[in-house]
């Protein structure tokens, strides 16, 4: 033991200065905390973050053109697409050589598919020529310009060469431009003609419907949260179970319940006919449209609105309301000027959460949305699993993810992710 009365730096039990000893202890503590977190962080990075990042890269990945047609791209380097002239013989010769190798390796259909997204019709030119070119003797047969055009007059089209030149880079913005209804022309981005625009419509519809769902959740959630927060705890806990039960019930159960209830021959229409509100002949169409999606999703997401509102309202001191009333405020003024502003953080937290969840929904719109009530997620799923245009699916996904992450960041700033509560 060191003598406490001695001068100089204060020492720890083992003789090192206390300051250094404490710093070491702190370092050890930090290290230990990180060691505990490390396995999970690694796990999430490998099973989740990396896959998502990998998919996002697909939205700009364009290596296929470079890989399959390297000689053609090199030969096209000096060609000016603005001249509206076909490229020189050298480019045709390079293309013939590339096409022959590609046809042998069976990669020409892949590049054909890629370029076909940008200029429909290219695929058949590539595919038809690939079969023939395979048999050519590239060294000696020539000249190729006439020969290729004779084989398929598609090669005489300047637009085809422009497309190859435009999409020759290793990375492309093409998919993203497609995702916002634009395309990459020879001289930069241009807007697609009106009749080809679908993605913007869908993006806007997704946003609009998510907003409607969020607002209906606020409208339905606020009174319930208020009631829960102002009832004695024992009653509130009982009612809270009514909110938590839907939260715990399988999403598919809830969606199938709505699918069954909203049918034209379903319980809701039957009841309305029985009461006499609706004529048997014109039963309401409640499903396979926007309305069906909105009803079902409001129901599914309502607990995510009520719970954050409830936890904020619980902290509002009832004496403020009483004070306002004692000073002559009417019930409405007291609520609107005193209570409501204090409950806004709860509304904010719930709204962001509901909106984030709504924007990315897939299952419910797919099942009850029909064609009019689908979301951007459904189109992403279509491109990934059915159409095979992975790049476009990834670009749409990247846009959706950007929206969600922005809101996530806002949520973290306002509420803090630590404060997310589950029941």
């Amino acid at each position, binding site marked *: 033991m060191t003598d406490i009365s001695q001068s100089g730096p204060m020492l720890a039990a083992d003789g090192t200065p206390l300051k250094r000893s404490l710093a070491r202890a702190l370092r050890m503590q930090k290290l*230990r905390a990180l060691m505990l977190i490390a396995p999970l962080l690694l796990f999430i990075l490998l099973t989740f973050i990396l896959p998502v990042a990998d998919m996002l890269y697909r939205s700009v990945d364009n290596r296929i053109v470079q890989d399959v047609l390297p000689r053609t791209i090199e030969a096209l380097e000096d060609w000016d697409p603005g001249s509206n002239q076909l490229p020189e013989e050298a480019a045709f010769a390079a293309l013939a050589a590339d096409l022959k190798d590609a046809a042998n390796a069976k990669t020409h259909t892949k590049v054909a598919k890629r370029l076909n997204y940008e200029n429909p019709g290219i695929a058949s030119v590539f595919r038809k020529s690939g079969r023939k070119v395979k048999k050519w003797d590239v060294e000696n047969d020539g000249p190729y310009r006439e020969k290729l055009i004779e084989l398929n007059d598609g090669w005489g089209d300047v637009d085809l060469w422009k497309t190859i030149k435009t999409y020759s880079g290793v990375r492309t913005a093409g998919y993203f431009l497609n995702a916002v209804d634009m395309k990459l022309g020879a001289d930069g981005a241009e807007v697609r003609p009106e009749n080809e625009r679908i993605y913007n419509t869908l993006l806007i519809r997704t946003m609009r419907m998510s907003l409607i769902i969020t607002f209906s959740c606020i409208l*339905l959630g606020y009174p319930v949260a208020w009631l829960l927060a102002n009832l004695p705890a024992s009653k509130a806990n009982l009612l809270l179970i009514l909110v938590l039960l839907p939260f715990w019930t399988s999403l598919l159960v809830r969606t199938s319940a709505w699918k069954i209830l909203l049918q034209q021959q379903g319980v809701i229409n039957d009841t309305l006919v029985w009461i006499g509100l609706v004529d048997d002949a014109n039963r309401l169409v409640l499903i396979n449209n926007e309305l069906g999606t909105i009803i079902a999703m409001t129901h599914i997401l309502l607990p995510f609105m009520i719970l954050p509102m409830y936890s904020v309202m619980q902290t509002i001191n009832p004496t403020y309301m009483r004070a306002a009333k004692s000073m002559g405020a009417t019930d409405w003024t007291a609520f609107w000027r005193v209570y409501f502003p204090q409950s806004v953080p709860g509304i904010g937290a719930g709204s962001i959460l509901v909106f984030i969840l709504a924007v990315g929904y897939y*299952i419910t719109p797919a099942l009850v949305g029909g064609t009019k009530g689908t979301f951007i997620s459904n189109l992403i799923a279509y491109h990934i*699993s059915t159409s095979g245009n992975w790049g476009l699916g990834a670009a749409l996904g990247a846009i959706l993810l950007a929206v969600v992450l922005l809101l996530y960041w806002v949520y973290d700033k306002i509420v803090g992710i630590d404060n997310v509560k589950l029941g």
Partner: protein
Amino acid sequence: MSALPPYASTGQRAWYYSFRVICGLIFFFLIAPIVVIIPLSFNAQDFFTFTPEMLRLDPEGFSLKHYRNFFGDDSWQTSMWNSLKIAPMATIVSVTFGTLAAIGLSQPHVPFRRAIMAILISPMIVPLIISAAGMYFFYSRIGLQGTYMGVVLAHAALGIPFVIITVTATLVGFDRSLTRAAANMGADPVTTFFRIQMPLIMPGVISGGLFAFITSFDEVVVVLFVGSAGQRTLPWQMFTGLREQISPTILAVATILVAISIMLLATVEMLRRRSERLRGMSPT
């Protein structure tokens, strides 16, 4: 609002009761769709609506036919077993990693705590279709696509945010002097963890586990992409059933799932109250 004062005016009285009616209707909206499928599942006919016999409470109108279909049908049974094989494994993985990390995160000095937290919670926030597509591409590249292991890992990742949230919430009220006292009396960190910390945070760990279980048990989108026919789960079967021709057997399945949810909810609520009582936070 808790009680109407005796001096309330007629207008206030009217508003008080109409407000309660409005709230009642909203509660009805929340619960009715779930409750209504339970009687419908006992329908003797293949209809999705109440038959006149059912409304008359005639025993003829009710039957267990849809339940027999569910338990007698091979594809439903396989999918149920697949779900029961995948969900517990995914739960074990997320609870093990999640609890360790939650303990690490609730230490007083953690560098980059906010950023780490944001990453760990992200599987809950990122739209499922994006996670599913990403996992589909990445897992096919490393040979996990269409395997049991792949689905388990994917579901474990999705369940982790829930474990982190519930366990860190339990640790917020944890009294650190208890572990210090244990160490003071000569217990090594492992003993301290298992004998002191673990029993106290157990309610949080179990509810986190239940959340992770239900996440995996309910999950459709990721399993559609990452799984193959061999991993066809119950939700998958329901999803295709709802998409193609909808069979009333779904009502029986839905009722069984609702019963499971009620059991899980009851367990979680009980644990939450117990944990609050133990920590002296219980509301009266």
